């Protein structure tokens, strides 16, 4: 399997603070990878750099062999990377179908919508995220778990090869987490490469086979969930200095 994402020596400084510090890793096509770290570790900044929201101070990001370092977000989406945000945002007063249709009109989304029609395409996405029976209502009336599904649906509408999910479980009830877990599994089974963050770890650590851990902007370890959870630096980062209980 080829490498879909190659991040090399990525660094991002905000004034005197180095949010991401010489961070490197690779993700292969079809993989399912988690990025963990305590609050403020730099996870979201890594996503912001990959998706073009922030420009790196140094280092490089290659997607499918193409250098995308510092490109505008829309160009990166058009190459095949979509992301979701920790805080859900939607077009509040458009119907769910229209919310999804907007992203189906992106360059890569059009490749599909031209063939089967935008509405058809958007509707099929609503079906796959489990919201098709709510197609005509606006998101303002939806519970948080449905908004999260909608957000993932909007990302899928751009027909991505790599999907970045930032904290997909935060703020959800237990039942909603189960729904989102199933959805993410299905997307991965459909062939989308998935890279997701989480600071609440129970769902993430049992979902992904591979985890990258970071702390204070730096790479700590890349391995199976068990390897990562037993790493001394990871333990100390989460539980405090001198954490002996393991």
């Amino acid at each position, binding site marked *: 399997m080829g490498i879909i994402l190659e991040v090399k020596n990525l660094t991002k400084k905000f004034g005197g603070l180095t949010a991401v510090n010489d961070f490197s890793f690779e993700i292969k096509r079809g993989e399912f990878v988690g990025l963990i770290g*305590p*609050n*403020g570790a730099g996870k979201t900044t890594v996503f912001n750099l990959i998706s073009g929201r922030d420009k790196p101070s140094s280092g490089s990001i290659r997607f499918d062999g193409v250098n995308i370092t510092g490109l505008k977000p829309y160009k990166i989406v058009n190459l095949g990377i979509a992301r979701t945000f920790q805080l859900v945002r939607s077009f509040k007063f458009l119907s769910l179908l229209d919310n999804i249709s907007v992203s189906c009109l992106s360059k890569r989304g059009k490749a599909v919508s031209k063939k089967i029609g935008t509405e058809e395409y958007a509707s099929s996405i609503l079906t796959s995220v489990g919201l098709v029976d709510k197609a005509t209502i606006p998101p303002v009336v939806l*519970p*948080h*778990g449905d908004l999260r599904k909608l957000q993932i649906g909007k990302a899928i509408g751009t027909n991505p090869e790599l999907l970045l999910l930032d904290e997909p479980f*935060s*703020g*959800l*009830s*237990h039942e909603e987490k189960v729904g989102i877990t199933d959805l993410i599994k299905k997307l991965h089974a459909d062939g989308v490469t998935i890279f997701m963050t989480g*600071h*609440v*770890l*129970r*769902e*993430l*650590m*049992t979902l992904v086979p591979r985890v990258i851990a970071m702390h204070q902007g730096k790479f700590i370890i890349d391995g199976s*969930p*068990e390897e*990562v*959870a037993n790493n001394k630096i*990871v*333990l100390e980062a*989460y*539980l*405090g*200095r*001198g*954490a*002996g*209980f*393991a």
Partner: protein
Amino acid sequence: MQDLLELKKVYHYYGRARALEEINLKVEEGALDAVIGPNGAGKSTLLRVISGLEEPDRGKIEFLGERIDDMKAHKIAKRGIAHCPERRRLFYDLNVEDNIQMGAYTLKNKNAKNAMKDFVYELFPRLKERRKQRAGTLSGGEQQMLAIARALMAKPKLLLLDEPSLGLAPKIKKKIFDAIEKIKQEGTTTLLVEQDAVLAMDVGENIHLLEEGKIEMRGTKEELEKEPRIKQVYLGI
């Protein structure tokens, strides 16, 4: 010892997301209890329902035998609960001394006020040195000291401390936690919530482990130290 604070089957929701589930918690007079748990476990919410910043959706909270769960925050403060909030929340444009004075808002007796001021300046000599300095210009550690000092000025019967180690270097964390021990020795009952389990277990007499809004486990440091469950709660597996 008498129970100062008792929570009985307390629930709290943010919209549909459950933040606290069936919390039962007793804090004895003179004790130092610590609640540990990862981000998002509900630690701050727990303190917020006690001090009245949030009204619990269900359950009872009693303080000195009186129900306070439906009471407004300012009334709860008058009853003797001081809340030192996460991320300090100082009056950043006021100087150190004025911040400290603001903490004594509920204290009418001038002598008591002065005695408390002497105590907090003795506890944190650094603050005395900087008493004319604007709070916003202090270092993170000094700001934390000031936040604790301000809460103490109300001469609380119960001190609630939210995440006092947040964002501080290990050496400074140690200083803050030394001060927390001293406050306890002076007889102030304290309920501490803290993500840094190691630090919290060092000072706390009773440790409560919170996971996804529920108290999963409790005990002394010795009882919990070898518990694999703590690591599981923090790291998910």
